[in-house]
């Protein structure tokens, strides 16, 4: 889990101060704090709650309502491993496991250095490219234990 550093706390306090007097400040404050920390853990929500004098329950309600907000950190690059039938039988699962082992990350999780978030997805309609992997907006065909790390090397 990514730690909130002292510098981040200072920035968060600055954001709260700047918006404090405005009505309807909560969502812009959350957007800015998320861009500082990468996510909105409870401790950050509690700080905002105190700073803006808004109940924590209201803040949690807003964070969980909008899809833009996340309470888990997201990586700079999103890896999606297709586990549709075609990809599954062609080795999608071992590919997924090799990424898990290499980077010490669970499916649905993010690496400690925020480089990657890893997800498995249902069929992405690229059966002819099975097993397929999508990194950000790029789709890769016939990925294997042999070439997967080389591909990911291109995403820093």
């Amino acid at each position: 889990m990514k730690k909130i550093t002292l510098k981040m706390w200072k920035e968060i306090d600055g954001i709260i101060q700047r918006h404090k007097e405005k009505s309807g400040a909560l969502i812009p404050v959350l957007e800015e704090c998320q861009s500082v920390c990468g996510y909105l853990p409870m401790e950050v929500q509690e700080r905002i709650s105190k700073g803006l004098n808004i109940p924590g329950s209201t803040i949690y309600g807003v964070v969980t309502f909008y899809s833009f907000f996340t309470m888990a950190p997201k990586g700079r690059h999103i890896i999606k491993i297709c586990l549709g039938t075609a990809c599954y039988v062609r080795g999608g699962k071992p590919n997924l496991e090799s990424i898990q082992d290499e980077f010490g990350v669970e499916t649905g999780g993010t690496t400690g250095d925020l480089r990657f978030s890893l997800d498995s997805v249902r069929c992405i309609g690229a059966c002819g490219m099975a097993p397929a992997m999508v990194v950000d907006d790029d789709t890769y065909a016939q990925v294997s234990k042999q070439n997967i790390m080389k591909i990911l090397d291109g995403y820093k």
Partner: protein
Amino acid sequence: MGRINRDQLNEIKSRGENIIDIRLGKAPVDGEKHLMVGGGTACHASRSEPVRDAIRGEIEKKGLSKICKVIETGNDAFSTLAPVMVVYPEGVYYVHLTPDDVDDIVSQHLIDGKLVERLLYKDPVNNKPIPRMMDIPYFSNQTLITLRNLTLIDPENIDDAIARDAYQGAAKALMDITAEEIINQVKVSGIRGRGGAGFPTGMKWGFAARAEGDIKYVLCNADEGDPGAFMDRSVLEADPHAVLEGMIIAAKAINAHQGYIYCRAEYPLAIKRLTIAIEQARRYGLLGRDILGSGFDFDLEVYQGAGAFVCGEETALMISIEGKRGMPRPRPPFPAQEGLWKKPTILNNVETLANIPQIILNGGQWYAAIGTERSKGTKVFALAGKVINSGLVEVPMGMPLKDIVYKIGGGIPEDKRLKAVQIGGPSGGCIPSNLLDTVTDYEAITGTGAIMGSGGMVIMDEDNCMVDIARFFMEFCQEESCGKCTPCREGTKRMLELLTKITEGQGEIDDIATLEELAEMVKDSSLCGLGQTAPNPVLSTIRHFMDEYEAHIKDKRCPAGVCKALITYIIDEEKCPGCGKCKRVCPVEAITGEKKVPHTIDPEKCIRCGVCIASCKFDAIEVV
């Protein structure tokens, strides 16, 4: 230049008109050329920026920078051709550009004056090049009012916009005519809300103008959320000042002094250009205190949405700006009486507001002369799906759908048969091919069971399954339902379950009646527009494509060959020479057979992914 008055606005306009005339092909000045590189989100995604930079570099290198200007516009209307560039004054349109093409354009076109034929748009029928943009049927059959500045201005340069009349309508509204007259002109124009519901804009403004209150708000809805729709995004990226000006006029009409543009976070380029436009307008004193010396104050902010489809609904949008969960509330009180922070508020969509300056400048009568009896002006559609030319199209109201599909869209690829036009996105419906004479008119389209909506228009051919389409939109609405009211939260979920069951081959004949009953209930009893319109795709497909529902349920067959549980792949023994290609590509090893002997597919193993069909050169694999 700092704050300007009306005379100075006119000076900037006349200074800029020479520049614009080059782009209008009117007055070539000493061989000056303007290269307008498309730079909307779709262009950036097709790597238009390296093309722009390469052409700038090459022009510099060849010492042509004095007479050749490279300008990035927000044009991504004909999105399938991106990256594109228009060379003015001749109006030549180059498509599918890469940085490698830049040398040829500079040396052949700019220096030798010869067209680079391989980069011109080609007629899809006879493959003949059509050099001038306005000769391409896709453009020549359109009427541009909302998108009038698409290829003509730099959206990040306010002087370009002013040269194209920006803020002239605002100047007239603030200094020459009264608030009542503004509202009257908007009423006369007959413009109706372009966000989807089609409520008369002038009437909405009238309610808010009459509402008591010292503080009022003008809001712009730029939370365009329908899948596939990008009309508003293009307007914001290509001509942001038109929207700002529309809001100033609206503010004068209802006597508001503060506005917000609620723009979805997924539109970073639109937000960037809006922010630049607002800064430039403020510097000129076109926003802020005492606009153009008229004594009228108005300022606005961009409010970034946080990813909730339901926030496109007016009450939800206002609640979201207040910093809460964006869940709709019952009406009345209507926003014109009690809106944002319980103050009288008007909310208009981007496209509506972008039309307002033209209406004020040219008069309501001018606008009302375009269109049908009850639907005036033009409408922008995002044309997509099984159509040759896809992208944004702006047409006068009253144009038959078949003209949009065939004259502008260029027809259906691969000579397939058109099955339906899906219009209005997840709130809309499917208009079948036998009703293609239906014209773009709010009432005419509602008569078919669809709605005009915000402008999504998806063309479907014989390979699209209408039950699957209904399921797709229901899944969207179900996921986006905010959960506040039971009919929408539960009703969309149950309808999705039924539709999934039918597409998986488990449907029973009573399911259709149940679907219809649920649909009526969700429609009648949901709190907001999301729930009230969510059943439309289901009801309209049941109405026009009952045979497809019956085929799925009774015959356990998907006529379009889409629903995987209901189709089987079979190899035609007479056509299959046993080449082995399909066997090699099958990802699940479902195909067997000796070489040079017709192969067979094991339906138990087959996952119906279609890879074998794509690989077969003999058309030997059929879907039944």
